[in-house]
């Protein structure tokens, strides 16, 4: 294959591709042009038009009704929010009351436990002998009793 042949082939290929792109673009332009014509035609196929004042009046009425509808929608939304908020508030309030009662009960329990502990401490403090030394004290008492008993017996004999 000579260099000239290759160049010619490349040129032909380019020319073909160029022509294909051109055809495609022409077709696209044509389609868009038809699209424009069709839209123009569709827009022209309107029914009888109202006088301008009547058109503006209709638009104004529509605007008013739109505003009213919007207000109504906001009112409905607000009502729905309130309706949903009432049970939620009530639930939250009940929940809060329940938690408060539980807290109070806990405080009361704590207070009772504290009182009992304090009483126990007071009792233990008021004892003459600590619990740990009680056996010794008991032994001492027993010994004192024995001594008394012995003395009494001795005195009785005398």
């Amino acid at each position, binding site marked *: 294959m000579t260099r000239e042949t290759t160049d010619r082939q490349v040129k032909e290929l380019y020319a073909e591709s160029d022509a294909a792109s051109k055809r495609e673009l022409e077709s696209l332009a044509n389609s*868009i042009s038809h*699209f424009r014509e*069709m839209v123009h*035609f569709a*827009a022209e196929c309107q029914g009888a038009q109202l006088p301008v004042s009547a*058109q503006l009046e209709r638009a104004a009425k529509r605007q008013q009704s739109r505003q009213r509808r919007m207000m109504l929608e906001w009112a409905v939304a607000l009502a729905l929010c309130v309706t949903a908020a009432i049970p939620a508030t009530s639930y939250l309030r009940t929940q809060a009351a329940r938690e408060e009662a539980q807290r109070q009960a806990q405080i009361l329990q704590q207070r009772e436990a504290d009182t009992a502990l304090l009483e126990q401490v007071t009792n233990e403090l008021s004892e003459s002998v600590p619990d740990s030394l009680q056996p010794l004290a008991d032994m001492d008492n027993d010994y004192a009793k024995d001594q008394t008993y012995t003395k009494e017996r001795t005195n009785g004999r005398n």
Partner: protein
Amino acid sequence: MASELPPIAREQAVLDLADFDEVVRLYRQRVFRFLLASLRDRDLAENLTQDCFLRAYMAREHFRGDSSLITWLMKIATNLIRDHLRSKRLRFWTKTRETALDPVDVSDWVPDERSSPEEDLIARTQVSHVWKAVGQLPAKQRTVFVLRFVEEMELREIAETTGMNPSTVKTHLYRALAAVRESMGGKL
């Protein structure tokens, strides 16, 4: 009315209360066409066209003539489309209208009176594909596409109408065209 006035001054003068009928007569068709191509619903386009002129009438004091009257009206129409699409998203439970426009419905439309039935059919098929492809474009791209290819507005005017930068308009247009071209890929 003074025909010697420059176009914008003449348009401003036309916006007088007494001449509002003239404004509607001059521009109603274009506004309606833009809304119809954007929303694809005849009744909705009709209602929004009326809303557009009502807004223009209410705000006529604020029209300073910085842009042409049609650009101002198209800007109002674009805002109405945006508001409508936003409220439609919020009102997802509302029914779809029955008056949606379909190119198949426009049976009286003849692409070219001299064309053969075969060419006629091809043209209708092409229109149907473009219509479908445009319908799938995102809202901004569709607006730019319709303003450029249906209303044949300049990029500068589209930028003024949509409130975008001219470069953003170009980007949207490029993407829209690419999407239409791609979706028509095998059908051209």
